[in-house]
């Protein structure tokens, strides 16, 4: 139809539609979270189509995994979601352990919970701070990084690395916690707790923030499920699913005895509604605000879990146990396991022919599915909403491109 209008010289002067413009957002752009390239089709300020292009960070991690033993591939998982490397390590370690039917010691189990939940806080802090940047406020980003820095200090003390830890490994962890670590962790949680209020004041309840996020990029329950979204993106749409509770036995067994409530809106309110800012009137379930808020709630939830894990870990008397040998042979067969990473459900699949080197490795990235929905959400929004929507999906390109 539009083509016909353009072709007919008598009608064209009545056609008020302005020219569409194709704009490249990225791969070098301040708010594309790494090397994402979005091709926007815009009519003035209105975006009619957003097409994500990926692959700028592809490192053939899966193929590399088919040439290394299971434990040797752990450092490569670090580099997938580099903001939550502990959770990545855990996903792969558990998948291999599932294939080998290996059970880690009780102490290792609690330490894994402790470490991954701490990393979840760090990851959500980056997600929160970077989201502020996407909306044009710089300071919350640095406030978030200030606290994240303290978590990284703790990690550094535990495993020597600040970003790519390779701490959790197949069959346990590479080392036990150093003496006095728990006290430092507790001190961190103590001072971090009141700071969350600051974040709520600067972002969650800020009038401009609410204006920019409420009712923007609304993703219905059905859409979220159709696109295979997971993690806070899925829960932001009101789907009550969390692998820590609903996952496979080997993963949920890790959280046995832990008390936590999945951060999702049920019957019109969040589990922690009483001591948290109320949902603004403009916000619609599934919009950017809810996705952001779920992350904020999960920070508190993870703090609870860290506290519980610290108690249980210090109650464990036995040794931590040694991780498996680098060349430990795996039984022939295959295994797939999804774990709840900060960005969503990260799945690892491996096929073994009986050697220590997997025959096939495959990673299912949560950010990949979460990003795929962007072109549905960005249809008809304004240019300024594109970073708001993409930011609320909290993607990490390292995980998408692997």
């Amino acid at each position, binding site marked *: 139809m539009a083509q016909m209008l353009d072709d007919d010289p008598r009608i064209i002067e009545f056609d008020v539609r302005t020219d569409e413009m194709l704009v490249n957002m990225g791969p070098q752009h301040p708010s594309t979270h790494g090397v994402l390239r979005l091709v926007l089709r815009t009519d003035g300020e209105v975006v009619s189509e957003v097409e994500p292009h990926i692959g700028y960070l592809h490192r053939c991690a899966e193929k590399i995994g088919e040439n290394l033993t299971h434990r040797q591939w752990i450092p490569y998982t670090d580099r997938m979601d580099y903001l939550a490397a502990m959770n990545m390590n855990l996903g792969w370690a558990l998948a291999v352990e599932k294939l080998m039917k290996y059970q880690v010691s009780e102490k290792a189990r609690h330490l894994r919970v402790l470490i991954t939940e701490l990393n979840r806080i760090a990851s959500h802090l980056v997600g929160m701070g970077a989201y502020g*940047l*996407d909306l*044009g406020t710089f300071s919350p980003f640095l406030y978030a990084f200030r606290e994240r820095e303290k978590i990284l200090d703790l990690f550094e003390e535990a495993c020597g690395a600040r970003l790519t830890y390779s701490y959790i490994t197949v069959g346990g962890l590479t080392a036990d916690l150093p003496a006095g670590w728990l006290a430092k962790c507790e001190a961190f949680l103590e001072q971090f707790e009141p700071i969350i209020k600051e974040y709520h004041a600067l972002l969650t309840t800020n009038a401009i923030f609410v204006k920019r996020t409420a009712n923007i990029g609304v993703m219905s329950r059905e859409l979220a499920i159709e696109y295979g979204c997971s993690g806070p993106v899925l829960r932001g749409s009101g789907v009550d699913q969390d692998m820590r509770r609903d996952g496979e036995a080997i993963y949920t067994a890790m959280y046995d005895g832990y008390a936590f409530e999945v951060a999702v809106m049920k019957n019109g309110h969040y589990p922690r509604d009483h001591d948290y800012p109320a949902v603004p009137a403009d916000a619609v379930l599934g919009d950017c605000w809810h996705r952001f808020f779920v992350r904020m709630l999960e920070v508190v939830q993870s703090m609870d879990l860290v506290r519980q894990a610290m108690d249980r870990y210090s109650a464990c008397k036995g040794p931590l146990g040694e991780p498996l040998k680098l060349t430990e042979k795996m039984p022939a067969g295959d295994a797939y396991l999804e774990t709840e990473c900060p960005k969503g459900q990260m799945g690892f699949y491996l096929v073994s022919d009986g050697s220590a080197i997997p025959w096939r490795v495959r990673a299912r990235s949560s950010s990949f599915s979460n990003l795929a929905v962007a072109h549905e959400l960005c249809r008809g929004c304004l240019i300024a909403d594109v970073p708001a929507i993409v930011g609320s999906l909290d993607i990490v390109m390292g995980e998408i491109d692997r």
Partner: protein
Amino acid sequence: MAEFLINTVGLPDWLAWTVTAMVAAALILNVIAGGALVFIWAERKIAGRIQDRLGPTRTGGKFGWLQSLADGIKLLAKEDLMPDGADGMLFRLAPYVSFCASFCAFIALPFAFDFVGQRMNVGVFFVIAVLGLEVFGVILAGYASASKWSLFGAMREAAQVVSYEVPLGMCVVVPVMLAGSMDLVTIAEKQAGWLTNWYLFHDPFTFVIFWVYVTCAVASVNRAPFDLAEAESELVAGFHTEYSGLRWSYFFMAEYGSMFLVSALAALLFLGGWNGPVPVASLLGLSEGTGDTAGYFVRLLGMANLLGKATLGVLIMMWIRWTLPRLRIDQVMMTCLKYCTPIAAAMFLGAMLWQVALPGGLVPALRRPAGEIREGWLPGPGGAFALPSADAGKVAKVNP
């Protein structure tokens, strides 16, 4: 100064006036540019402190106070890039348009009684009009850059600044109406005396309209949360995406110059200008109008007063910038058209009615009697661009 050159040095009239004008222009240009450098440094320090870091600490010693200068040298040394598809002439011209517009407006800005580059009986009008020209530089830059992001920035700037000129104009008209003059010196003069004489506290309408003015002023100089033309999270850097080196720094200087200008204008129009909250000078029996040393000292004090108020305004803008997220373009336009403009119009009407109903204010005793106001503010024989009086010519050389 011109009289001195003519009478003592013996220069011909035209040469004396040209030299005087050039000295005054150089003073304005350099002091404002120096001020912009200080503000750039201050912004970095303040941003640092707000964000729990130190900001610059090393360049130039203790507080990194030479940071802006070091940045300037870096910008000078940078490669001056121009995109292949750019419209060369406009691309080169644009930064100077912005820069000139921002700095020209300072000509009519009084820093204290008679400390003014060129006193005009339409000073307010001149400042607002010249400041409005700044947008042309931005639009030219966006258009000539041959970059889609720049074009977006330019279109946003055009839409935003042009809309905000409307409520801004209405806000400015209220003090003009109260003072009965468009001369900035007169407007400030009329607010001499105690705090209660400031137009901010003149009546409830002026109090409200001051905040409307603040909003519009922030929007019209493109500061956060209205910095849509250079929204870095959406438009990379907006209109100055393709600029580098010294040309880019001209935009930067223009921005800081404008920030200071609108703050100074707020101080002059609403916050008593160079008159402090307590009329110390007149309590001591001194007058700023006299040509002797005491008068000069009082004027210097007034200048410090005005600079303090304007600086405070700039600092508040910085504070806002480092705290708030950015609005979206439709929300910015809505703020202007649905809130600022109607409120400004209603307040204008209210202030007008107040003037008719209660010309002396609620408590007339608090207000200075009209007769006390110096008559010198009346438009001079020079017409629209009345020349300053003889002693004003002398102090012109210390004009910042």
